[in-house]
C-alpha cells in the first residue's frame, strides 16, 4: 500500500503523517501544485494551517491543482483521509458534509482525547471495533463540527458518523459529539483529532495507528 501525503504551503503535520503511514506501508509526499498523485493507493491530507488559515480554514487549499486530482480519485473510490486541516479542506471541497467552526472557547486547544469508534466498516476504521475507545491527541482552534440537523440525521442514518468524542471529551462543541465523518461509500474519512500523533506509546499512545492499518488492509483497487 502506497500512501500519498499532500503538502500545501502552511501544512505542518505532513512529516508526522508520512512517518505514521510508513509504519504500515510506503509513503510519499504530494506537492500541492502538481496535477499528479504519483500512483498512490491512498491519499492523506494532513494537518496544519494551509495558506495560514487565511479567509477561512481550508478555503484556499481546496482549489489547489492537487485537490482536483484528489477529488477525482475520491469520487472513483480512492481512499482519502483528512486530518484536522485536511478535514476542513475535504469539507470545503464538498467531499464530506458539514463545516468546521471555531471552538466554543475560541481558543487553540491541544489535548489528548478519547474517541469512540461508531462505524468500524469504513476504509479507515476497519481494523477497529465498534465501541472501541482510542486515545488520540487533538489540537486546533477551528474544530467544532457543524451541519444542519437534517444533514446530521442523514449522516447518522447512513453510518457516516465514524468517530465521536467520548463523554466529557468534546471540548470544541461539535454537534452530536462528532469527531470524524465519512462519505457514503466510506472511502473518504475526515477527523479533527490527529491519529498520526498516536502511533507510538513513547510519544503518548499507539491507538491512532489503527486508522492507517485499516487503510493498508484494504485491497488495492
Amino acid at each position, binding site marked *: 500500500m502506497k500512501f500519498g501525503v499532500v503538502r500545501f504551503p502552511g501544512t505542518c503535520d505532513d512529516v508526522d503523517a508520512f512517518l505514521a503511514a510508513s509504519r504500515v506501508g510506503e509513503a510519499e509526499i504530494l506537492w500541492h501544485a502538481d496535477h499528479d498523485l504519483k500512483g498512490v493507493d491512498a491519499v492523506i491530507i494532513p494537518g496544519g494551517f494551509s495558506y495560514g488559515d487565511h*479567509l477561512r480554514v481550508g478555503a*484556499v487549499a481546496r*482549489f489547489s491543482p492537487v485537490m482536483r486530482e484528489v477529488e477525482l480519485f475520491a469520487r472513483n473510490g480512492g481512499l482519502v483521509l483528512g486530518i484536522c486541516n485536511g478535514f476542513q479542506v475535504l469539507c470545503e471541497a464538498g467531499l464530506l458534509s458539514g*463545516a468546521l467552526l*471555531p471552538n466554543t472557547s475560541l481558543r487553540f486547544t491541544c489535548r489528548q482525547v478519547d474517541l469512540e469508534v461508531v462505524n468500524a466498516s469504513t476504509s479507515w476504521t476497519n481494523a477497529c471495533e465498534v465501541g472501541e475507545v482510542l486515545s488520540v491527541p487533538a489540537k486546533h482552534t477551528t474544530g467544532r463540527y457543524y451541519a444542519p440537523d437534517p444533514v446530521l440525521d442523514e449522516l447518522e442514518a447512513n453510518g457516516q458518523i465514524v468517530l465521536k468524542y467520548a463523554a466529557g471529551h468534546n471540548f470544541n*462543541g461539535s454537534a452530536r459529539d462528532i469527531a470524524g465523518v465519512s462519505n457514503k461509500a466510506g472511502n473518504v474519512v475526515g477527523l479533527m483529532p490527529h491519529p498520526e500523533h498516536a502511533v507510538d506509546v513513547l510519544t503518548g499512545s499507539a491507538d491512532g495507528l489503527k486508522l492507517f492499518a485499516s487503510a493498508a488492509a484494504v485491497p488495492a483497487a
Partner: protein
Amino acid sequence: MSRVRVLIRPKAGILDPQGQTVERALPALGFEGVSNVHVGRLVELDVEDPAQVPAMCEKLLANPLIEDYEIQ
C-alpha cells in the same frame, strides 16, 4: 475599476461564540444596553467586472453552508 465591499456573516441560528464573547465583555467595560452582537468578515476589493463578485462569494469568499454574504 470599482471598489466592492462584501459583508460575510455567520448564518442565523449557528452559534457565534465571537459575538457572544463581545456581548459578554462589553458590560464589564461599562457599556450597557448592547445585544444581538455578531462578528463576521469584511472583504474589500477592486474589480474590473463587478458582475463576477457573486460568483467569487459563492466559490471562495463565503461558505454558504455556514455564512451569508451581502455585496455592496
